[in-house]
């Protein structure tokens, strides 16, 4: 019987016995261990591309209690490409304004939405169980259309045997154990990754000596839909910092930074939590709204990553590969980018259209992303928890100056909210032969912009695309093919180029041809169309040399 480690919020994939449990081990092209947000996003992406994906999860649904609440624009764009974005937007709470307090004083406000012309907001708040459920809902839709995705609930992976070109897995179920084989195994089994342990791989990094109490409370209150963050909160028992942030269903996330030496059991006593919450909610005008404690938990945080995300036929994605402190909301958001990066590469390799070496670029690109995320969340954590008297003095000086002077505000760090990384100077990059804006340089994720009735990102889906802006691509050319890989031409005549599209992709250039990867990162760009150049860049982008 698989261990039950947590209660579920939604029972989405109840255990069903399959025939393979009574036969010799069946071989699968791709097996994903772990049906969290990352495993499900990856399965959905692979299935839509026609590559079979089997997800094994040791539970039968999504865990109760929200860990992640902030989902970033890039994540929504990826979810949109996968067909699950609208449900997230509909349910989520859009927010733009953050307020920073120091003790009793308001330090400053920030607004996250400076730029028009994007389909998605900078951030939404949505409980992680909903995020995962919407991905699974979309998997069900795709399955009905014939996508080769299978989810097996209450299938706990208990062992792994690495044979170099494939692995054998031991699986425990309510009906006993069985084995399967996988050409490719993707470990999306979370920060405590059993797969990583089976393989004896290390996961080194920094532990932050701090405990954070999280209380999600349900209340009807007229606090605005803003992120409120206090350094040295003025209310009783709040610890070194506190956070108040709205979620859907009248739920508010409250966070208290309690310090290192605490008695966990005592701090989780509901009466004690209520005393703290009362003090926070009452600090505004003395009145405390009626509320219920929905979910409470105490966390400690670490920043660490695996050295390599690929070990032969086993790849790691999401928290199994890297872990960050939550200041900046970079955990699930970066994991979804792992899935986005890996799915198309794995699809090409499984179909025999690209060499295995393409998968090494997954590790190179995403470990670069992980480093950026770890750096940012480490700096935020250091600002929240100064390590010495001097750094505390600097921190408070910044907060005091920021009340009066704009210059100090960019130095205030309560979390730098997740933005996707740019794959600058990475091996899959082709030439950047266009004098055009930096935001759409080679390696960058394509910036969104209005196009026709929709947005440019809606047009850059499927496989590789060739975005031809006022470019001289002959009308009969609908695609450019190199070996088995085709880039579909997306022609945009001059009169269809919107101002935002021009500003983000052309600048002063008259025309442009962008080769764009299936994960919507720019692979190469030129001023004019040339078949041979596109084919060469496709080879590079698919790791063919």
């Amino acid at each position: 019987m698989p261990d039950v480690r947590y209660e579920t919020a939604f029972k989405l994939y109840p255990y069903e016995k399959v025939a393979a449990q009574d036969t010799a081990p069946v071989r699968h092209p791709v097996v994903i261990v772990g049906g969290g947000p990352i495993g499900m996003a990856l399965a959905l992406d692979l299935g839509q591309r026609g590559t079979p994906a089997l997800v094994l999860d040791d539970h039968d649904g999504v865990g109760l209690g929200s860990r992640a609440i902030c989902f970033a624009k890039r994540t929504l764009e990826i979810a949109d490409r996968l067909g699950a974005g609208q449900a997230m937007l509909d349910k989520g709470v859009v927010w733009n304004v953050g307020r920073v307090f120091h003790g009793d004083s308001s330090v400053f406000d920030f607004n996250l939405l400076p730029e028009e012309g994007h389909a998605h907001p900078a951030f939404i708040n949505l409980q992680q169980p909903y995020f995962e459920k919407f991905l699974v809902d979309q998997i069900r839709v795709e399955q009905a259309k014939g996508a080769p995705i299978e989810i097996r609930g209450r299938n706990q992976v208990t062992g792994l045997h690495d044979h170099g070109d494939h692995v054998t897995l031991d699986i425990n179920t309510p009906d006993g154990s069985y084995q399967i084989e996988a050409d490719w195994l993707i470990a999306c089994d979370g920060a405590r990754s059993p797969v990583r342990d089976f393989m004896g791989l290390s996961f080194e990094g920094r532990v932050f000596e701090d405990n954070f109490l999280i209380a999600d409370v349900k209340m009807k209150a007229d606090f605005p839909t803003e992120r409120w963050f206090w350094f040295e909160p003025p209310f009783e028992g709040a610890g070194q910092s506190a956070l108040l942030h709205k979620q859907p269903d009248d739920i508010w996330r409250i966070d208290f930074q309690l310090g290192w030496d605490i008695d966990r059991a005592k701090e989780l006593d509901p009466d004690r939590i209520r005393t703290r919450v009362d003090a926070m909610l009452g600090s505004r005008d003395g009145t405390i709204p009626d509320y219920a404690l929905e979910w409470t938990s105490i966390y400690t945080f670490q920043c660490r990553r695996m050295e390599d995300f690929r070990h032969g036929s086993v790849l790691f994605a999401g928290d199994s590969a890297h872990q960050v402190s939550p200041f900046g909301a970079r955990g699930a958001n970066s994991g979804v980018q792992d899935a986005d990066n890996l799915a198309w590469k794995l699809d090409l390799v499984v179909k025999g259209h690209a060499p295995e070496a393409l998968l090494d670029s997954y590790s190179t690109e995403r470990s670069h992303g992980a480093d950026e995320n770890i750096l940012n969340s480490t700096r935020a954590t250091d600002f929240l928890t100064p390590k010495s008297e001097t750094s505390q003095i600097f921190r408070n000086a910044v907060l005091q100056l920021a009340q009066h002077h704009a210059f100090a505000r960019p130095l205030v760090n309560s979390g730098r909210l997740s933005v996707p990384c740019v794959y600058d100077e990475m091996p899959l990059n082709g030439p950047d032969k266009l004098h055009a804006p930096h935001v759409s340089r080679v390696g960058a994720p394509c910036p969104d912009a209005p196009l026709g009735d929709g947005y440019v990102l809606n047009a850059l889906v499927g496989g590789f695309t060739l975005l031809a802006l006022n470019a001289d691509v002959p009308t009969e050319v609908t695609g450019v093919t190199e070996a088995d890989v085709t880039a579909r031409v997306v022609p945009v005549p001059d009169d269809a180029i919107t101002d935002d599209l021009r500003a983000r992709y052309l600048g002063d250039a008259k025309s442009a041809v962008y080769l764009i990867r299936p994960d919507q990162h720019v692979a190469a760009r030129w001023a004019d169309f040339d078949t041979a150049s596109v084919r060469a860049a496709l080879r590079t982008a698919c790791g063919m040399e």
Partner: protein
Amino acid sequence: MSLNLNPNIPDPDGFYDSLVQAHEGLSKTQSDAYNARLILVLANHIGDRAVLADALKAAHHA
């Protein structure tokens, strides 16, 4: 020239990190002395007495 109180440092997080790291391993007394030297170095770079006078005022205000 007047005192610039608008954001002026590229990569503010990186700068802040190196400022705090410069103090790593120093005792409180050593850190205070380091800060004093740092202020004098920066003040000399600014040079302009009017700007320095404004900076002295701006730092008081809090």
